């Protein structure tokens, strides 16, 4: 069985446990295993944009080094973790100054030069397994379900670093949905912001922004939405009040593959 080194991130241990548990059982059904890094630390949830922010990147660098030492790619699930991990890795590979500063902090463990390949779970399905193969392994096709893929910001932008998909016209999640047998609904706001962390202090603003996303999806015929981001899911669900349910993409994957979350993991999924 193919094994990937895995970075779950904080939210996947609590509020977004479903994103994690369904990913693991689906992985097993698809023939690969996610092996969680020991003692990982929080990625910080937002990428430290200031060019002088060094310490804030160390947690990611440690995870990236652990993956390098495992000799395997590092797989992420949460959009935020993926964003931060991918960008920090990019800095370590491309930004000589940042690399030198970070490595100064890492006396014993270092140096690190961005050698790890960071993959989103969806990229594993797309690049390593292949959506054609995935389609063959589907036992419960999601026929007749009209599903919109809500990408949000962090998987796509900045595209020069994220290299995930076309930032304005992405297709990866749609092709994923097609492989699961669902009817994919493309809607224009699928790459727009849900309001992000503004919902902590100004709920009405994120409500407004998330409503734009949900309305756009509904207007184009979506009856449910998928996402890879716990914060997108939270903001859109708060707004739509369940009218347009938002679920993690791994939940649909597990449904289509006909697998259940295992008991101990299911226990988390309250």
């Amino acid at each position, binding site marked *: 069985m193919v094994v990937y080194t895995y970075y779950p*991130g*904080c*939210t996947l241990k*609590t*509020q*977004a446990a479903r994103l994690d548990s369904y990913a693991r059982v689906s992985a097993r059904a698809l023939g690969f295993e996610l092996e969680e890094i020991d003692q990982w630390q*929080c990625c*910080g*949830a*937002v*990428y*430290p*944009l*200031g*060019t*002088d*922010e060094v310490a*804030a990147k160390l947690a990611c660098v440690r995870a990236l080094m652990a993956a390098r030492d495992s000799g395997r790619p590092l797989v992420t699930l*949460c959009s*935020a973790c993926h964003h931060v991990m991918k960008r920090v890795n990019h800095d370590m590979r491309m930004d000589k100054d940042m690399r030198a500063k970070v490595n100064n902090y890492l006396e014993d463990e270092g140096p690190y030069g961005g050698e790890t390949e960071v993959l989103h779970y969806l990229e594993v399905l797309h690049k390593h397994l292949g959506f054609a193969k995935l389609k063959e392994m589907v036992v419960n096709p999601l026929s007749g379900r009209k599903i919109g893929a809500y990408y949000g*910001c962090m998987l*796509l*932008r*900045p*595209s020069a670093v994220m290299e995930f998909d076309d*930032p*304005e016209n992405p297709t990866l999640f749609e092709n994923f949905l097609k492989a699961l047998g669902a009817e994919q609904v493309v809607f224009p706001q699928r790459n*727009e*912001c849900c*309001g*992000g*962390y*503004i*919902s*902590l*202090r100004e709920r009405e*603003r994120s409500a407004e*922004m998330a409503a734009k996303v949900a309305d756009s999806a509904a207007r184009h015929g979506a009856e449910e939405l998928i996402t890879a*981001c*716990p*914060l997108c*899911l*939270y903001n859109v*669900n*708060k707004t739509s009040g369940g009218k347009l349910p938002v679920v993690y993409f791994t939940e649909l994957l597990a449904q289509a593959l006909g697998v259940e979350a295992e008991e101990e993991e299911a226990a988390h999924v309250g």
Partner: protein
Amino acid sequence: MLGRTDLPNRLRVISGAKDKDCMKCGKCSASCPSYEKMDIRPHQFVSYLQRGDVDAMMNSTTVWACLCCYACIERCPRDVKPAQIIEAARLMLIRRQGDTPYVSADDIPELLDPDTPQQLLVSALRKYTK
């Protein structure tokens, strides 16, 4: 310590943004989802930086309204990176003040609900506190 006259250059260094490359096309402001909540608009940040008015940038509502969705960075035809200029102004403000006028750590517990994801808490803390 850097004097006040050095603030614009300090901001340039922290942001890594290329304000001189801006041709004032307005695509950043056209793309911004938080535009209405900003008193200084994304495209104006370049002008403020060019004339050195960093205080106004730091005290703007923009530094709290920007959500780092990177739409302006993605679509800018000159690779100016407006969001990074805004971010640098915010960083300079919270580094100077330590505490933020936008939200303090003490306020946070009452802003939570049972569904609040950790991701929200962590990102808000990272963005709003030193």
